[in-house]
C-alpha cells in the first residue's frame, strides 16, 4: 500500500537546503500481511518467472541484432551473457529493495524512500528513458516486422518514407506504423484495458515458440566461418554491444515488483529470478549464435528492420518461416508496447501523487477510472520519439537510463541496510555486500562502453529533470505539508457525513 497525500500539493516554498533535497518519503510498515490486491501471496515461482520472461523477451531481441552485431561481431554472444549477468545481479538488489519498500512506482519510489527527493527525481529521469523511450524503441521495431509481415502476405508494404525516421541510416519522413501502434495502445489504456496474467502466459509461449523456430531454422545454415574472427573489436566491442543490447534485459526487474504477492519471498524470488534469467539468457544466446553463424557480420548492418525475419528469408529462400516469425513478433511486440506504455503512465502518476509533477498527471477520468490526461501526454511524446528518432539512438538512451537506475537501486540496498538494518525485508540479497557491489560494477562497466553522445543526451535530460525539480517540484512536494501517510486504500468505504 502506497503512502500518499490526500490531494494536490499546493505551492509551499521549500528552502534549497540539504534537508529538503535529501528528505525521504516515509516507508509504510506492516504491509505484507494486509495486502488486499486479491492476489495476496498467491503467485508461484513459475508464474513469477513467467512475468519476468514475459516482460523481458520482446523488448529488444527481435531487432537489436542489427545494431549490436556490427559493434561486436560474433562476440555479441559474450555481450548477451555479460549483460544478462549484470541485469540478474541488479534484479536481485531490486528484489530486496522492493521487499523493503512496498510502494508502487518502480525504482523512483524506492529511491524516494531511501535516497531522498533529489535522487528520486534523477531516477525518475532515468525511468522516463527506461519506459518511455523503450516504448518508442519497441514500436519502431514493430513497424519493421509489420512491413515484413505485409510483404510476406503479398500485401503492398508501407512506403519507406512513411515507415522510417528522418534521421535513420536510410532516411524516411516519419515512422507512421510506430505512431499508430502507440496510439492504439494508448486508446486501450484509456478505455481501461489491461493484459491479464493469462494473456501474458500466452505471449510468453508465442515469443518462445517463434524464437525457437528461428534458432532451429537458422542453425540449418550454421557456418563456423562466420564465427571467425570471434572478437572483431576486442573487449571494447563486447562492452559496446553489451550497452546496446542491455535494453533487451529490461523487464527482468518485474519479478521484484511482484515480490509482495509471493508465498515465500526468500525462496521464491531467487528461484524465479534464476529461472527467468537462465531462460532469457539461454534464448538470447541461442538466437545470437544462430544468427551470427547463419550469415556474415557485415550483413547485419543492412537489416535495420525485422532482422530475424530477414535472416530466415535468406536462409530458407522461402517466405513462410519469415511470415510466422513476423506474425509472432507483431503480436508479442504489441503486447510489450502496451505494458511498457502503461508502466510509464503509472510512474508519472506516482510522481504526480507525490507532488513532483502537476496535478494534471493524477487526474482520473470518472467514467473510465483511468488517468486519461497522463496517458495522452505520454502517448504523444512516445509517438513523436517513435516517429522521428531511429532505433539505435533510442536503444542506447534506454540502456543508459536503465543502467543508471539499476546502479541507484543497488546502491540503495547498501544504504538502506546501513541506515535501517532492522527494517522488515522478506527478501535479502545473498552474499551481501558482494552482490550489490558486483551489480554496480557490472552496470558501470557496461555504461563505460556506450557512445559519448549518449552520455551527453543523458546528462542534458537528467539535468533538465533536476532543474524542473529545483524550480517546481521542490515547492509542490507532498512532503511540504504534514498529512496522514496513508488514507486507507484498502478500506472499502469512505463515509463523510457531516
Amino acid at each position, binding site marked *: *500500500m*502506497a503512502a500518499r497525500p490526500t490531494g494536490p500539493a499546493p505551492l509551499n516554498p521549500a528552502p534549497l537546503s540539504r534537508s529538503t533535497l535529501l528528505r525521504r518519503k516515509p516507508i509504510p510498515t506492516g504491509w505484507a500481511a494486509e495486502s488486499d*490486491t486479491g492476489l495476496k501471496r498467491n503467485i508461484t515461482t513459475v508464474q513469477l518467472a513467467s*512475468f519476468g520472461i514475459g516482460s523481458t523477451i520482446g523488448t529488444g531481441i527481435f531487432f537489436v541484432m542489427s545494431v549490436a552485431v556490427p559493434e561486436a561481431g560474433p562476440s555479441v554472444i559474450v555481450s548477451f551473457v555479460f549483460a544478462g549477468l549484470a541485469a540478474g545481479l541488479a534484479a536481485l538488489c531490486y528484489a530486496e529493495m522492493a521487499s523493503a519498500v512496498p510502494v508502487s512506482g518502480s525504482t523512483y519510489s524506492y529511491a524516494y524512500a531511501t535516497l531522498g527527493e533529489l535522487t528520486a527525481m534523477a531516477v525518475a529521469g532515468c525511468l522516463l528513458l527506461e*519506459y518511455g523511450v523503450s516504448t518508442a524503441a519497441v514500436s519502431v521495431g514493430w513497424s519493421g516486422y509489420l512491413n515484413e509481415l505485409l510483404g510476406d502476405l503479398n500485401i503492398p508494404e508501407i512506403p519507406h518514407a512513411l515507415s522510417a525516421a528522418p534521421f535513420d541510416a536510410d532516411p524516411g519522413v516519419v515512422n507512421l506504423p510506430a505512431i499508430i501502434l502507440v496510439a492504439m495502445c494508448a486508446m486501450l489504456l484509456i478505455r481501461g484495458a*489491461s493484459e491479464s496474467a493469462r494473456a501474458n502466459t500466452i505471449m510468453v509461449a508465442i515469443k518462445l515458440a517463434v524464437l525457437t523456430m528461428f534458432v532451429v531454422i537458422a542453425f540449418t545454415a550454421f557456418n563456423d566461418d562466420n564465427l571467425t574472427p570471434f572478437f572483431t573489436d576486442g573487449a571494447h566491442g563486447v562492452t559496446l554491444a553489451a550497452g546496446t543490447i542491455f535494453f533487451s534485459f529490461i523487464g527482468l526487474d518485474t519479478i521484484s515488483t511482484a515480490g509482495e504477492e509471493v508465498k515465500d519471498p526468500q525462496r521464491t524470488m531467487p528461484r524465479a529470478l534464476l529461472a527467468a534469467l537462465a531462460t532469457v539468457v539461454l534464448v538470447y544466446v541461442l538466437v545470437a549464435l544462430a544468427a551470427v553463424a547463419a550469415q556474415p557480420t557485415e550483413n547485419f548492418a543492412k537489416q535495420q528492420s525485422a532482422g530475424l525475419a530477414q535472416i530466415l528469408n535468406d536462409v530458407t529462400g522461402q517466405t513462410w518461416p519469415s511470415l510466422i516469425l513476423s506474425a509472432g513478433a507483431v503480436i508479442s511486440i504489441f503486447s510489450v508496447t502496451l505494458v511498457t506504455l502503461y508502466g510509464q503512465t503509472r510512474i508519472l502518476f506516482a510522481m504526480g501523487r507525490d507532488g513532483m509533477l502537476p496535478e494534471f498527471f*493524477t487526474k*482520473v477520468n470518472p467514467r473510465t477510472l*483511468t488517468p486519461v490526461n497522463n496517458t495522452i501526454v505520454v502517448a504523444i511524446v512516445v509517438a513523436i520519439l517513435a516517429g522521428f528518432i531511429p532505433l539505435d539512438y533510442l536503444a542506447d538512451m534506454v540502456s543508459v537510463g536503465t543502467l543508471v537506475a539499476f546502479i541507484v537501486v543497488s546502491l540503495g540496498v547498501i544504504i538502506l541496510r546501513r541506515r535501517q538494518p532492522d527494517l522488515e525485508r522478506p527478501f535479502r540479497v545473498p552474499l551481501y555486500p558482494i552482490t550489490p557491489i558486483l551489480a554496480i560494477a557490472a552496470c558501470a562497466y557496461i555504461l563505460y562502453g556506450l557512445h559519448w553522445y549518449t552520455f551527453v543526451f543523458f546528462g542534458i535530460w537528467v539535468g533538465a529533470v533536476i532543474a524542473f525539480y529545483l524550480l517546481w517540484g521542490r515547492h509542490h512536494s507532498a512532503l511540504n505539508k504534514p498529512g496522514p501517510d496513508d488514507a486507507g486504500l484498502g478500506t*472499502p468505504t469512505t463515509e463523510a457525513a457531516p
Partner: protein
Amino acid sequence: MTVVVGYRPGFGGEEALELGIAMAGSLDLRLEIVIALPRPWTTPSMAKVDAEFASYAARLGEESERAAHAALSRHSVTAPVGVHRVTERSVSVALTKVSGELEAQFLVMGTRHRTRGGFSLGSTTSRMIHSSEIPLALAPPDYIAPPGGLSGVTCAYSATADGTDVVAGASTIASSAGVRLRVASFGVAPADMYPPEVGLDAERGVLAAWVDQTTAAQSALRTSGLIDPSVATVIGTGADYTAALAAIDWPAGEVLAIGTTPRSPVKRVFLGSTATRILGGATVPVIVLPG
C-alpha cells in the same frame, strides 16, 4: 400525478406492485395499476384461433386484476387505486400510452434474477429505459415493500458534469417523500496489468486518486448548495460494481437513483456502461432518471 405500475403476475409484476405501493404511499401519489394485454387478432380465422386468443387475453386480464386486488388488500391500501386493462400491440406501447394519459410521475416495472446476483432487465423494461420520458422505478426480484414505505434515497453520483442533474432529481424525490437523501459514488479497482512492471500496487494508487477526486466533488455539491449540508456522502469501492455497492449499507426502504445520458430522439436515453453495471449489482429498487 400518479405512480403507474406495469403489472403482470409471474413476470416481476408482484415486486413492481410492492414497490408501487411503497412509492405511492411515501410520495402521496395515486397508484395506478396497468395490466397490459396483447391485442387479439382482428382477422377471423377458420379454426377460430383468434377467438381462443381473445378469450385467453380476457382471462389473463381478469386473473391479473384479481391478483392485484389481493396484493392491495394484503397491504391494507386504503388510498384510491386505479386498475386498468389496456390492450395494445405491445406492453411498452401500452405503458407509454397509459403513462401519458394518467399523468404518471413514475413508471414501476419488475426485473429478473441474474445468475451472478443482482438483477437484469427483460426486453420490455430495457425498451422502456431507452424510451421513457419519466423516471422508471425497477423492483428487484423478491422485493417486498417495507412496512414504513421508503426510508431514504441514495443517489449514484458519477462526479461528472451530468452527475449533478441526477443529484438534483434524487433530491426532489427525497424531499417529496420526506426521506433523507444520500449521495453515493461507486468505484471499481481497475484490473492489474501483467507483467506487473511497476508493481501490483499501481492500480490501487489510481483508485485512491479517484477516491480523493470524488470526495472533493461530493464536497463541492454541498458548497455549491446543490445538496443540504446534512446530506451524507459515501464512497463504495470494490473489485466490481456488485462489491462496490455491497461495500455501503442499504437500510430497509432505501432506493437507489441513477442517471442516464440524453442521446437522440430515437433512443431518448442511454444507460451508460457504469449505470448498467450498477444496475446489475443493485439489491435495492433502482429509479432510473432520464437525462
